[in-house]
């Protein structure tokens, strides 16, 4: 009699455990489908800032701190080199500036003045100027229609492709973050732009 009661208690506990686990699994699956944990939601705002190179400013908001890894512009990727736009399509090169094209990338600086010497048009963080006082962090440089150029950072360092202070991903600000800003030259016909993050992506144009 005592043995029978012991077995029934064991079976009852097992049933309770299985019911609890099943309920937990059902609830987890349901909630996970509605809102997967650690899944970013992005909101973008694009502003056409005009000008001869037809730049657009794209503001990106992420629901969770994220680290952008690469910008995919048409068939080109910032992973392949410095992105440029020649009015028709995007491509990449290992030069910071090109004749008849607009290159865009970012540089990491300490606080001070960024100076760009070129025979074309230059933007630093969206300001059309050859020099700009900036804070510490990543800053975007856009150089248009320039056969020769040099980018000098605070402290006298010269930025070169492949160096630690140059990133082919054109973004302003520090990472990981929930807000990002970038200036990108665009053409008349739309070309898809996609920002790849660690674990997700955002179609920004």
């Amino acid at each position: 009699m005592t043995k029978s009661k012991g077995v029934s208690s064991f079976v009852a506990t097992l049933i309770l455990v299985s019911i609890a686990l099943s309920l937990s699994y059902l609830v987890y699956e349901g909630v996970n489908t509605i809102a997967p944990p650690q899944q970013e939601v992005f909101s973008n705002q694009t502003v056409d800032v005009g000008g001869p190179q037809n730049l657009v400013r794209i503001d990106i908001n992420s629901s969770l701190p994220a680290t952008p890894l690469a910008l995919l512009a048409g068939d080109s990727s910032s992973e392949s080199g410095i992105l440029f736009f020649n009015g028709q399509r995007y491509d990449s090169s290992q030069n910071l500036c090109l004749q008849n094209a607009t290159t865009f990338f970012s540089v990491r600086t300490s606080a001070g003045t960024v100076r760009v010497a070129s025979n074309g048009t230059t933007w630093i963080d969206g300001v059309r100027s050859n020099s700009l006082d900036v804070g510490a962090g990543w800053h975007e440089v856009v150089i248009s229609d320039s056969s020769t150029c040099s980018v000098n950072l605070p402290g006298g360092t010269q930025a070169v492709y492949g160096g630690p202070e140059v990133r082919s991903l054109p973004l302003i600000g520090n990472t990981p973050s929930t807000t990002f800003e970038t200036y990108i030259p665009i053409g008349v016909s739309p070309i898809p732009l996609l920002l790849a993050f660690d674990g997700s992506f955002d179609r920004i144009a």
Partner: protein
Amino acid sequence: MGALIVLRRRSRGVSEVVSSVTMLAITVAVLGGVGLISIGSLRSANAVLLSGSQNAENEAGVLLSLVSTQGNSSGTYVWIFNYGWAEGRITSVYLNGGIESGWKSTCGALRPEQLCFVELPPATTGSLVVEFGARTISISL
């Protein structure tokens, strides 16, 4: 002997209750943990979507019209009228595709059916973009 039997029965009863309560506690803890993670994710996603929809609302409600442009020795003036139903604030001014810093404005907040001007340095020329949040107006000077 009788007291021992009573004690053994009481002990078994308590252990069943304890095991059930433990199972309940584990279930509540698991569900609570999952719920907290998901609610956090939902809240941050909701904040981003809310800001996106507010931008869209702002874009829809701020309707801008260029009234006139004037230029003299003291400056270049651009008059803008808001014929929408939402208030707009100038967030940036771009001249020839670059951020312009040397501008002043009478419109801290441009209310519906109100007029304001943006003042730029004398003899400013080129393509001007005035940004009111998500809404922009492009002017050729």
